């Protein structure tokens, strides 16, 4: 959605119309919010869940809870929070992934992992996609809440305040989860390194 469309969109008027069950306004609201929602959903998409299904669930929650929106925070923030909590619920519901193994990695991913484990040099930019996929696989080994915190902190580089606003968790809890998650990742790296040597 272009910036022109964004600036031209009258959110307040649209919300007023949605509140009196104007279906055209509801459609406009979905189109306006879809980029925001789909980016959050894609970033925290659980395995075996279609992104459109999850996006639809988020929008249904937005519409059914619209009466609770008091305007204390900007509407996109309120929607973002619903999207994040919906993703967390789905992540919590999914079963833990089986043990992470070298054999499950693609050739590129194995090369990247080998590089970060054995070399102090940075991974080449050409391997960025493989690195991204590898990060996703490693994060899937963590508990859903820890996974979400590390993804937001390290990958999306959000601040503690931003994460707190999106999740409703205190900054202390976020720090604790980040610490726990990084310790788990560290153990995972050590295990992988031992297995590589053996």
């Amino acid at each position: 959605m272009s910036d022109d469309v964004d600036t031209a969109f009258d959110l307040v008027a649209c919300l007023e119309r949605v509140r009196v069950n104007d279906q055209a306004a509801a459609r406009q609201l979905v189109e306006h919010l879809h980029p925001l929602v789909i980016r959050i959903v894609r970033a925290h998409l659980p395995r075996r869940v279609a992104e459109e299904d999850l996006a639809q669930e988020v929008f249904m929650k937005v519409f059914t809870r619209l009466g609770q929106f008091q305007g204390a925070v900007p509407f996109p923030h309120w929607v973002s929070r619903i999207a994040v909590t919906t993703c967390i619920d789905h992540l919590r519901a999914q079963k833990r992934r089986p043990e992470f193994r070298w054999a499950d990695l693609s050739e590129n991913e194995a090369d990247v992992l080998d590089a970060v484990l054995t070399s102090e040099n940075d991974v080449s930019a050409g391997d960025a996609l493989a690195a991204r996929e590898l990060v996703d696989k490693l994060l899937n080994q963590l508990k859903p809440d820890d996974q979400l915190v590390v993804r937001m902190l390290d990958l999306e580089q959000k601040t503690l305040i931003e994460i707190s606003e999106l999740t409703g968790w205190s900054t202390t809890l976020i720090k604790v989860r980040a610490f726990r998650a990084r310790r788990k990742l560290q153990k995972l790296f050590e295990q992988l390194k031992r297995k590589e040597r053996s």
Partner: protein
Amino acid sequence: MKKSTTAWQRLITAARQAPDISGDDAAPYGFSTHVASLAMAAVERPSLQSALNHFSWRALTLSLMLMVVSIAANYSTVPSVVEVEQEVASDPVAEYLTLS
């Protein structure tokens, strides 16, 4: 510990450079119409559970308010009734007359 942390940092730094290949962010054709119609239908037909939820909270609030108002309005009569009952209890003749 430092070594592993560095490994994670190197990996995450590389991952951040990955291009976004997730595709268009705009809603796919028909998505907004479908979601809007579902949402409007859900809003127009609230579920029995949500209706019960809504009304039970209202009923509870109303009954609590009535309870407080009735206690406040009748509080002055309560001590006098207690006094009369105590007097009746201590006087067997008065008790007999009350019963008859």
